[in-house]
């Protein structure tokens, strides 16, 4: 059975999903029990703890951007609630705008 998600570095506040996880699923991760808030796909990130706007998102032990909206533990962390500290990323719909 594939583990649901992995934490890449002890300093991280997000985990990476090794498979799609479903809303309401309970997973044990890095000594925590997380209740998955919403469906999160393989390769995407879930918050290990509640994060607030301005908080650094830490993965691989390094900051990969800052929160722009709050997320609860077990919630999906992606471009709807975080942003790059360097160059804005873009989605297909948002081509031509800065995200």
């Amino acid at each position: 059975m594939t583990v649901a998600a992995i934490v890449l570095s002890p300093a991280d506040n997000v985990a990476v999903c090794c498979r799609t996880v479903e809303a309401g699923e309970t997973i044990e991760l890095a000594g925590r029990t997380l209740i998955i808030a919403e469906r999160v796909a393989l390769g995407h990130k879930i918050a290990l703890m509640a994060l607030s706007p301005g908080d650094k998102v830490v993965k691989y032990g390094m900051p990969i951007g800052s929160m722009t909206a709050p997320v609860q533990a077990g919630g999906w962390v992606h471009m709807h609630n975080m942003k790059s500290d360097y160059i804005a990323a873009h989605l297909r719909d948002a081509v031509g705008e800065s995200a």
Partner: protein
Amino acid sequence: MIQGYLRADGRKGIRDAIVVVYLVECAHHVARRIVEAAGDPRVQLIGFPGCYPNDYALSMMKALTTHPNVGGVVLVSLGCESFNREALAANAAAAGRPVETVVIQQAGGTRPSIAAGVEAVRRVRDAADAGVRRVPMALSELVVGTICGGSDGTSGITANPAVGRVFDALVDAGATCIFEETGEMVGCEGHMAERAATPAVADALIASVEHAERYYRAMGYGSFAPGNAEGGLSSQEEKSAGAYAKSGSRPIDGVILPAEMPRGPGLYLLDVVPPGDPKFGFPNIVDNAEIGELMACGAHVTLFTTGRGSVVGSAIAPVIKICANPETYARMKGDMDVDAGRILVGEATIDGIAQEIVALIEAVAAGAQTCSEALGHQEFVLTYKASGPAGPACLAA
């Protein structure tokens, strides 16, 4: 055992391509028909579309037409474009490559030019075959490039770290390894600098990434595609951290520019971002532009990691496709040489996949076809770029 193709200039290749080169889009159709008429996967099409001259394109073509995997060259010119076909032909001839040029306006148009090109290919191939020798080639004589394309949240935790271990093993064996895309090192510059072989290289690494960030910021986009986001990556620096894992852990010996050969074995960063303010557009419009630059730096083979699933190969040098994502592999396995997603589902380790890739590099160097080769992929793209040293520190020895 790898049996390399020994060229007249002393370099050793792992393939024996004959390249048909269009020197302007106006000659593309004729060149393509010449390649089709040959009906031989060794005879491959590359070219440059623009009519205006460009030093970068000339230096790239000089490097590619004398690549160790290339045995002979046929140039196809319309006749009135700016590309310096005489300089390109002379450069290839000086490196001992049989070379012929077809000029469409002199040959009398499309049909006579195709006929002349078909004959030129036959003569060049015969001359190349008569001149080449097969000789033993060690792993340490290989130049290996790496690139990621269609990255997602799995790339940085399976395929890329596995390639990093491959690079460590190859560097330890005395081979030459090149990683690239300074725009995908944004956020990793500090860590890279700590791995620099000398303080000058550390300065060059930091300067190249700072320049890349300025350049991409001015262009309005980072090196980040919508599919990266769909695959779970949320920021440039998150993508960078995953991409950077391909470089492994050994000291970084230098920063090189497109079409510049590494000075010796070891690990090099290819700075793909042109010097100065943005000019001519994005540094590289698509993955094959980067594969072309790795080849122009001498790469015999390219390790291509993908999460979302790329299908491309390349003219001239084989591409080994390493799939990071087990779901993508299940969908696209006919295009994938290595299933690194097994790491994610606990069926393989990073070191195990790395050993598999090293064995595959040896097999491919010895002649085994990659998936993209077997499928006939021979993509190539070359566009305008500014050239010149990227900064006073960037050519540090």
